[in-house]
């Protein structure tokens, strides 16, 4: 009996039959980028490990990061980071009760999207400029 009652408990929305809106898309993206960033966290540890291992290992790590495959990975990682950061702050504001009206939710959603792209672009311009000075 316990099982049959349990079966009627509400489920998370089925993503396949759910009409995509800005609100739901950003919510899914928050979890998606979160998962990507978990991989990024593992990479951070590997980067510190390479630094601790010595110049040869660090050189190999740097070689991978600056290889096209590494750069594409960093691109995905940096966008995920800035998105998760901006949308995370949006979540924190909701937690204290700010911006709950639907028009506000949509507006702040678009702001998050715009700022994620701007910050990612800014970070890459800075990185490329510094790379040219330092190398």
């Amino acid at each position, binding site marked *: 009996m316990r099982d049959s009652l349990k079966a009627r*408990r509400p489920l998370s929305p089925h993503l396949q039959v759910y009409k995509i809106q800005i609100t739901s898309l950003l919510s899914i993206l928050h979890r998606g980028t*979160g998962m990507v960033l978990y991989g990024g966290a593992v990479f951070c540890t590997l980067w*510190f490990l390479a*630094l601790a291992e010595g110049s040869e290992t660090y050189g190999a790590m*740097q070689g991978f990061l600056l290889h096209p495959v590494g750069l594409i990975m960093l691109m995905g990682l*940096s966008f995920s980071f800035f998105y998760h950061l901006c949308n995370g702050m949006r979540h924190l504001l909701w937690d204290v009760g700010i911006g709950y009206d639907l028009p506000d939710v949509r507006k702040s959603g678009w702001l998050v999207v715009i700022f994620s792209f701007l910050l990612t672009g800014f970070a890459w311009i800075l990185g490329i400029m510094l790379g040219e000075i330092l190398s």
Partner: protein
Amino acid sequence: MKFETDVHVARGLGSAKSGVHHWIIQRVTAIALIPLSLWFTCAFIVLVTAPYEYAREWLSTPWAVTFSILFIFLIFYHGYLGMRVIWEDYVPQTSTKWALLIGTKILSTLMAVLGIVSILKVFIS
């Protein structure tokens, strides 16, 4: 002796009494990570193209080591909490769910300690 079962137990709707702690810690780690992750990102943008000695020197001050250790600890704490919710929400098979939950916990602990030990090694040597 009680002959009746509590309704919330019978329906399987009882609270585990540990959700609030998870919820609060997820937010506390998130807030702490705002400045820390921005700090690390700025440092990484400079270091990614810089020579090895440059990175070693960066990690030679007590402040950089402190922030780096906190950063590594908090990304794995926050990341573990987030991954846990994702497995709990989307993996229906109980045994797979448990394997993923325990696996994530082990991986997070391992990677956090490995990162912190690496940071300390650079600082000490």
